[in-house]
C-alpha cells in the first residue's frame, strides 16, 4: 500500500518538476522514488495485510509482482535518458504517465475486489493510450493510440459486463466472498466468467483478441512498446491469474477448456505469424502474443504453484524484452530502420550488443542456461502436473517454431556482413542496464532456485 502511495505521489512530484523546468532532476527523482517504493513493498513481505474494507490484499503474491513491476520500470527509466527529449520538449509528462501506469499495475496485482481490478486496469490503460500516441506528428503513432484506445474501450465493456453478471450471481465484488458463494453452477456466473475472460484476454493480447498488438507495438515509440511488453503484460497476467486463482478456482472445470483453446490459438497465431515478419519490432510484437500463450498454460494449472511459474516466466520475459527492445531502439536509431537486414554485421561493429541480443533472444526462445529456459520449464511442469500433456506437446512444437524465427536475427548479426556499418555509440545508461540484464539472465538461468521458490 505504501508503495502504491509513493508511486502515485511520485508521479505528481515529477509533474511539478516539469512545471518548474527542473529537467535534469526528473530521472534521479523518479529512480529514487521507485527504489523507495520497491523497498516499502518489500517491507510488506509475509504480513498479508488487508486494506480499506478488504479492497486490497498485500500478500506475498502482490508484493512479489509489485516489486517486479517497479524494478522493470526502473530498468526502462535507465534507458530513457535522452530518449524522450528527441520526441518533445515536455519530458515530465512521459515520466508522470509511465508512473501512473505503474500505479495502475500495482493495483492490478494486489486487488481483492473487482472494483479495484477495474480501476487498476483503467489507470494502466488510459496512461498507455496517451503514451502510444506521444509522437503526435507521426501518423503511425496516432494510429496506434487510436486503435489501442478503441480496442481497449471495447474490452473494458466486456470486462464490466462480466463483473456485473458476477455480482448478480454472487452478490459481492469481494474475491473471497465470490469464492465462497457456491454459485458456480449458475448460468449468470458462467457468463460472467466468460465475459471477464474476454475482457482480460484483450488486455494481455490473447488470440483471437490480439489483433491490435502488432500495429500498436509498431506505431508506439520503442520504449513505450518495451513498457507494454514487460510491465503491462506482467501486470495483466498477474491480475488474470489472481482473479482466477482467488475467485474462480472452484469453477475451473467450466473455464479450463476455454482457456486451453485460447492457449492453442494464441500459440499458433503468434508463432506462425512471427515467422513471416522481416521487421524486428513486429517480430517482437508477434512473439509477445505467443508468450501470452505460454503464460495461459500456467493459468490452466491454477492451484499447482501456478503463481510461482508465472512469476518466473514474467521475470525471464521482462528481462529479455528489455534487452531486445533496447537494442532494437539503438539499431533502428543508428541505421534508420528496424528491418532484420539492419542487424547485419552487428557482431563485428558492436560485439557487446550482439552478444546481449543473442542472449536475450535465446532467453525468449527458451534455450538452456538462460532465464527463459526455466520460465518455460516451470510453466510446462505445472501444466503437466495437471495432466495437460497434449497441450504441452503443442507448446513444445511452438517453442521450436520460436527458435527458428528468433535465430534469424542471430544469423543476421553473426553471419551476414554489412560493409559500411559503423559502431553504435552507447550512452552509460544503456551500458549499465544491458549489463545488469545480461548478468540477471545468466544468474537466473544457472540458479533458478533464486526466483523459483519465492512464492
Amino acid at each position, binding site marked *: 500500500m505504501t508503495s502504491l502511495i509513493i508511486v*502515485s505521489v511520485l*508521479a*505528481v512530484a515529477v*509533474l511539478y518538476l516539469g512545471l518548474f523546468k527542473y529537467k535534469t532532476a526528473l530521472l534521479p527523482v523518479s529512480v529514487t522514488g521507485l527504489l523507495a517504493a520497491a523497498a516499502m513493498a518489500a517491507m510488506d513481505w509475509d504480513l498479508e495485510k488487508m*486494506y*480499506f*474494507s478488504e*479492497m*486490497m490484499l498485500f500478500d506475498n503474491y502482490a508484493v512479489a509482482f509489485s516489486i517486479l513491476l517497479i524494478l522493470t520500470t526502473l530498468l526502462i527509466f535507465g534507458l530513457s535518458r535522452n530518449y524522450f527529449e528527441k520526441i*518533445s*520538449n*515536455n519530458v515530465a*509528462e512521459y515520466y*508522470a*504517465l509511465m508512473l*501512473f*501506469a505503474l*500505479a*495502475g499495475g500495482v*493495483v492490478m496485482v494486489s486487488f481483492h*475486489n473487482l*472494483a*479495484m481490478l477495474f*480501476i*487498476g486496469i*483503467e*489507470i494502466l490503460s*488510459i*496512461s498507455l*493510450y*496517451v503514451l502510444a*500516441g*506521444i509522437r*503526435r*506528428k507521426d501518423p503511425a503513432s496516432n494510429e496506434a493510440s487510436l486503435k489501442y484506445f478503441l480496442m481497449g474501450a471495447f474490452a473494458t465493456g466486456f470486462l464490466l459486463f462480466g463483473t456485473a*453478471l458476477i455480482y448478480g*450471481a*454472487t*452478490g*459481492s465484488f469481494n474475491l473471497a466472498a465470490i469464492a465462497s*458463494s*457456491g*454459485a458456480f453452477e*449458475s*448460468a*449468470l456466473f458462467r*457468463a460472467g466468467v*466468460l*465475459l471477464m475472460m474476454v475482457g482480460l484476454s484483450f488486455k494481455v493480447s490473447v488470440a483471437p483478441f490480439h489483433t491490435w498488438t502488432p500495429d500498436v507495438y509498431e506505431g508506439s515509440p520503442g520504449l513505450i512498446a518495451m513498457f507494454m511488453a514487460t510491465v503491462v503484460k506482467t501486470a495483466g497476467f498477474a491480475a488474470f491469474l489472481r482473479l482466477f486463482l482467488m475467485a474462480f478456482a472452484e469453477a475451473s472445470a467450466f473455464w479450463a477448456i476455454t482457456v486451453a483453446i485460447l492457449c492453442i490459438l494464441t500459440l499458433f497465431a503468434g508463432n506462425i505469424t512471427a515467422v513471416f515478419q522481416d521487421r524486428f519490432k513486429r517480430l517482437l510484437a508477434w512473439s509477445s502474443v505467443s508468450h501470452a500463450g505460454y503464460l495461459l498454460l500456467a493459468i490452466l494449472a491454477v492451484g499447482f504453484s501456478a503463481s510461482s511459474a508465472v512469476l518466473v516466466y514474467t521475470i525471464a520475459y521482462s528481462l529479455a524484452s528489455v534487452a531486445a527492445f533496447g537494442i532494437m531502439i539503438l539499431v533502428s536509431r543508428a541505421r534508420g530502420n528496424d528491418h532484420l537486414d539492419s542487424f547485419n554485421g552487428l557482431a563485428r561493429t558492436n560485439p557487446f550488443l550482439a552478444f546481449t541480443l543473442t542472449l536475450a533472444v535465446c532467453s525468449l526462445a527458451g534455450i538452456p542456461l538462460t532465464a527463459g529456459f526455466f520460465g518455460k520449464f516451470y510453466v510446462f511442469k505445472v501444466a503437466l502436473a495437471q495432466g495437460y500433456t497434449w497441450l504441452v506437446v503443442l507448446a513444445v512444437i511452438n517453442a521450436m517454431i520460436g527458435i527458428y524465427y528468433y535465430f534469424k536475427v542471430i544469423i543476421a548479426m553473426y553471419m551476414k556482413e554489412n560493409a559500411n556499418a559503423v559502431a553504435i555509440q552507447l550512452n552509460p545508461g544503456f551500458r549499465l542496464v544491458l549489463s545488469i540484464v545480461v548478468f540477471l539472465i545468466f544468474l537466473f538461468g544457472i540458479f533458478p532456485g533464486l526466483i523459483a521458490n519465492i512464492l
Partner: protein
Amino acid sequence: MTAIFYILAGIMLAAACYVAVSRDIARAVFCFFGVLFAMAGLYIFALADFVAVTQILVYAGGVVVLMIFALMLTDKQLLENIRRGESSGPRLFRARALPSILLALAVFAVLLQVITAVDWGNMAWRHEAVAAGNRITGHENMVENVGVNLMTRYLLPFEVISVFLLAALIGAAYLARGRTNN
C-alpha cells in the same frame, strides 16, 4: 407500471437499432440521446434514482453535447466523403459488417442463455439479504446511501479514481496542446 417499462424499453431498442444501422452521423447522435434518456427511465425502475439523475446529467447532458460539438467541428467535406463511400454498397447489411454482426449475435446468445437459464427469484444471496433486512423498499434516501457507501466501504476506489482522472487529464492536455511550440 409494466406498460411504462415496456414503452421505455421499446423506445430504447428502436433508437439503438437506428443508431446501429444509420448512415447519417448527426441523426445517429440524436437517436443515441433517446437511448440514454430511456435508459435513465429504466434505472428509476430499478430504484436507482441517483444513477438515473447522473445518467441524464453526465451522458444525456454532457457526452451527447460533446459528440454534437465534435460533429460540428469536424470537416464537412470529410463527413461527405465517408457518406459517399458508404452509400455505394447495399443499404442495410454488407459483407464488411459480417464480423460485427456475428459478434453481436454471439453476445446476444450468451445473454439469452443467461436470461432463460437463471432462476431469478431463487438466488441464495437474495434470500440472505431479505432475511437480514438488507434491502430497498423504495422509501429510502438513495443519495445518502450512495454517499455513505462511497465514503466508507468504497473509499479506496473513490480515492484511486482521482489518480485515474489525473492521468486522463494530463494525457488530454498533452495531446491537445498547440502544435507550433512543440
